[in-house]
């Protein structure tokens, strides 16, 4: 593999890496004195990476080396992460104190770099490092985000639980290595995929243990119940703009890793795993929504809402690409569509919280939001669009996302063994929509119906408003014209469909090792 090929294939990642290092350096120079120079430079880096990604077009999947595999999925995740990344920087424009801005922007870029690498990883070790690259900057970002003791507390809490989840993840990966004899996720040779893990629908016990631990470790990253406990505290502690990032970036990385994990066995999930994910999804969305009903703090409420959204996305993950192509049949395409939409709407909701302050600092409780609509109709409108989108209400992109997931859930023929449970899960998701309306409406009602004697202080400046405007406009545009994103999402799953078919053509290498283990341990 010539080095030049490697460099061109990884050009977006390299731009991010060089940009992040450059920003770290610039942060220490006198240029940092200019208020908006560093975030502007950060946006330029992201735009450059995005332009390179789009100009290079969709990769043909033939590049696979050094634990990386540049596939159509990589392409999709790259441009989604970079686009939302630009919005994240816009929203975080004025955030940290002056001296720390260089580090702050650089860390955001590094975290995004982690997401990009997760999407190209084809080696469990690279995947592990990439996910840690996503997480570690976020620990620091939380602490930097505001001068509040709660931010430090949140940072430490997130770090410890994150470290624990990393340990669980690494432990599970070691078992997967034990089962397959290789750290490769899938064998790729000339664009042909063959599986490294058994795909018989019955994992050997070693592989099963590994699978469960990896699932648990990644469930931390996507904040699925019962691994969600950190989310509300962390979201409450961090400054609102960075919370908008926390809800999206680790979740995207986590779900991409989960997709890779499931694709590694050709989506031929053992029935135990299916039921496990089923329960995980049902409990995650129900618990998230029900507990959110009880909250008065807006950020905690949105934290639980983001947990509930993890539940919806787990439904899509469980459906998988088995039933066909396109987001109306393919759960993975629906998931990829949903997570992109979710990133923007979630960021928009937090951006609105960041755009106003009260005497005691950020908007905290619902009462703090009272009367925003009379004071700033445009901001309130953007908030309403984002919140209705989170609720999955027309005419917003959240509705389309939910539509894709539910239709995909119905797309198993009635004689399929797991068709009935998926039907029930879809009904659970639908009931959850009603529950979620209970608290999303409270947010909108506070802004529109509530009255406040004192006006809130506008904070954040015009980049924040622009970020918010783009988020909410994107929700409307993607409702009217969902085909573009949906088409991209469905093309992104081409690689996964290949691995599903690889599971059936069975070109297995080293897989008998895991089964042999079973034979030896069984009486």
């Amino acid at each position, binding site marked *: 593999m010539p080095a030049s090929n490697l460099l061109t294939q990884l050009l977006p990642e390299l731009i991010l890496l060089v940009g992040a290092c450059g920003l770290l350096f610039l942060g220490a120079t006198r240029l940092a004195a200019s208020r908006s120079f560093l975030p502007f430079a950060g946006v330029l880096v992201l735009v450059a990476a995005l332009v390179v990604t789009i100009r290079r077009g969709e990769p043909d999947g033939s590049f696979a080396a050094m634990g990386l595999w540049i596939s159509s999925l990589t392409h999709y995740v790259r441009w989604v992460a970079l686009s939302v990344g630009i919005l994240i920087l816009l929203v975080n424009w004025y955030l940290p104190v002056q001296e720390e801005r260089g580090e702050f922007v650089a860390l955001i870029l590094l975290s995004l770099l982690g997401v990009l690498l997760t999407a190209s990883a084809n080696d469990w070790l690279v995947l592990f490092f990439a996910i840690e690259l996503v997480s570690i900057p976020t620990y620091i970002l939380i602490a930097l985000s505001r001068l509040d003791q709660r931010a430090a507390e949140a940072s430490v809490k997130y770090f410890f639980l994150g470290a624990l989840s990393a340990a669980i993840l690494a432990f599970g990966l070691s078992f997967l290595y034990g089962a397959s004899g290789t750290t490769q996720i899938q064998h790729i040779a000339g664009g042909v995929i063959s599986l490294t893990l058994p795909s018989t629908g019955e994992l050997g016990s070693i592989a099963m243990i590994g699978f469960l631990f990896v699932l648990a470790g990644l469930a931390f990253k996507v904040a699925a119940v019962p691994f969600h406990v950190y989310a509300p505290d962390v979201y409450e502690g961090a400054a609102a703009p960075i919370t908008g990032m926390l809800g999206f970036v680790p979740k995207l990385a986590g779900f991409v890793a989960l997709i890779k994990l499931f694709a590694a066995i050709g989506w031929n999930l053992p029935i135990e795993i299916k039921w496990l994910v089923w329960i995980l999804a049902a409990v995650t969305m129900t618990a998230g929504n029900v507990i959110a009903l009880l909250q008065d703090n807006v950020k905690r409420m949105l934290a639980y809402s983001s947990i509930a959204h993890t539940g919806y996305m787990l439904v899509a993950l469980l459906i998988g690409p088995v039933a066909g192509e396109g987001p*109306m049949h393919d759960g993975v395409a629906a998931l990829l569509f949903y997570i992109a939409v979710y990133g923007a709407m979630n960021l928009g909701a937090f951006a609105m919280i960041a755009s106003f302050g009260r005497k005691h600092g950020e908007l905290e409780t619902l009462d703090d939001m009272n009367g925003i609509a009379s004071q700033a109709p445009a901001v309130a409108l953007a908030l309403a669009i984002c919140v209705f989108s989170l609720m999955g209400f027309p005419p917003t992109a959240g509705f*389309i996302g939910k539509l894709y997931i539910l239709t995909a859930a119905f797309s198993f023929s009635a004689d399929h063994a797991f068709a009935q449970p998926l039907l029930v899960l879809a009904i659970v998701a639908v*009931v959850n929509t009603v529950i979620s309306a209970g608290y999303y409406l409270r947010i909108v009602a506070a802004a529109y119906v509530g009255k406040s004697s004192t006006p809130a202080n506008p904070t954040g400046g015009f980049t924040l408003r622009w970020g918010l405007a783009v988020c909410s406009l994107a929700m409307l545009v993607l409702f009217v014209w*969902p085909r573009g994103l949906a088409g991209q999402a469905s093309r992104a799953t081409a690689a996964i469909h290949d691995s599903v078919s690889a599971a059936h053509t069975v070109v297995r290498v080293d897989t008998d090792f895991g089964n042999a283990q079973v034979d030896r341990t069984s009486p």
Partner: protein
Amino acid sequence: MQTWLLTAIIFSPLLGVLLLWLPPRGSDRSIRRSALFYSVVTFGLAVFALFKFYGVAPTDSQGDPKYLLQHWSYWLGDVEVMGDVADVEILYHVGVDGISIWLMVLTAFLMPLAIWSSFTSVRTRVREYFSLLLLLEVGLLGVFCAMDLLLFYIFFEFTLVPLYFLIGIWGGPARRKAANKFFIFTLSGSVFMFAAVLFLAYYSYSDSGLALGYITLNIEKLSQLAHAGFISTSVQWWLFLAFAAGFAIKVPLFPVHTWLPLAHTEAPTAGSVILAGVLLKLGTYGFCRISLPMFPHATMTLAPFVACLAIAGIIYTALAAWVQTDVKKLVAYSSVSHLGFCILGLFSLKITRVNGAVIYMINHGLSTGALFLIIGYIYERYHTRDINEIGGLARKMPWLTFFLVFFTLSSIGLPGLNGFVGEFLVLLGTATSNTTNDLRAAGPLGYGYAIPAAIGIILGAVYMLWMCQRVLFGPLKEPPNTPDTSTGLSADLTGREIFILVPVAVLCLAIGVYPNPLLDTFTIATEQHVLRTPASHSWSVTEAGDDLQEEIKRADPMRLVESTSVNNLERVSVGNVGSDDLSTKKLGITPVFSSYPVTTPGMFLLNPVTKSSVAKTDHPETDAMTDGRSR
């Protein structure tokens, strides 16, 4: 051929909303006037569409079902952009038939009145208020024009948002509770409908369902297939229940009606007018457009159950209305009671009676809308709606008295006014539903249902007249310091207020005296789209052996449609029977006039609908939905 007319009508209020935000802050006066102007423009367009519709409308129910003034464009799923998802055909697709065109015009007609009536009553956040009213109009017009099930659902659901804000911001003291209850109640019903829509989408595609090989949610296609018996009975049951969950809450039917009185009492006048006048019709319209045509078996089986709920609602809410002291709440309960009649009429499954139900929707929209306007006028002057605090207003307000009595009489069904037409047809239909006097198969209801419903009518007259008597006649009773004329009102109705009510009153009278133009278009639409009786008669043959079948096949000009074996009984239905009825008698065939449902096992439609006849085409225009005459 496509015409942009309906799309222009649906989205013209949206353009109005954008324009409303142009004038600078503080120009409330010009905002009010321009909002009224935009809604009048929409009404003008709707009337234009009405004339255009009558220009091309079918004059009898022969021929294929037709929706007119269609317009469509690809929305979800596009052959070019997503090569691999070309099997999705969910469109933005609008079109109208004889039923929906009138409901659309009713919406466009009531909206300017509602906007005009709030000129004095809404003083705060004027721009937002009128924007929301216009947004609400977009949703309502969209529901009546949608020809795609998903589009229908989207507009249906979207109407919640503006009304939520209208009640929540400009409502009475308990507005927050009322708005939340309204939103959550209706949402909890309609999410099941959402699931059902998506299930239908999948069902149309899958091999275990309709096996079309592509996802379609076209209402007309699905109805055709359903009537040809391609949707299995058990699936119909579940889908009917899921859709009914959405529609019943919207109507509202008896046990789930509790959100309505609260929403009505708290809503501002214009909100109430639109809520009673149009929004509740979304439920009955949904039954009529979706449940009846798409799930004929389930409808037939469940009709007695739905009718019982409707009757329970009629009696219960009539009694509840009787004891109300809040005039607005009284009218709100009467609304629930009246819509029970509407449901009864629909589920009698007889063509003229379904027409009665549809005209009942229009009538109820007019008279109850007007009643809410009048109550709004009283409230603006006296700041109370308590029946115990006001009385004898006839002495002071002759104009108001005239209109209140007029619309009360219209509402309780005085012959000569509009209410009577619908009420009569509905009761007649309910009573004679299970007969075959009209040469159609027996419907599910009968006298047992008509008698309690008739009692409901008597109760309706009692409480409405009692309310009139207390409010209008007897000694004058006013709360202190009233009437409040500080906002430029006079003691009796002002010219503006009278001008708002006059067109409604004229329409009430006109429909009462000469309802035929409406009923005629309803008949065609009902036959073609709701009950889907074939244009020519269907014949069924019982106990016909192979020999007989052969004979039937040979018998010219009859065309054998299909035959199946059910419990060893051969049932054959044949179509396009020529003028020579003797041939059938010679064969010993008993003619049975087919009616709803025509899809009892083994009995098939004439002009047989097969999967291939509604198979996917490049453009929707090439099959049964073709709007032939508008070219």
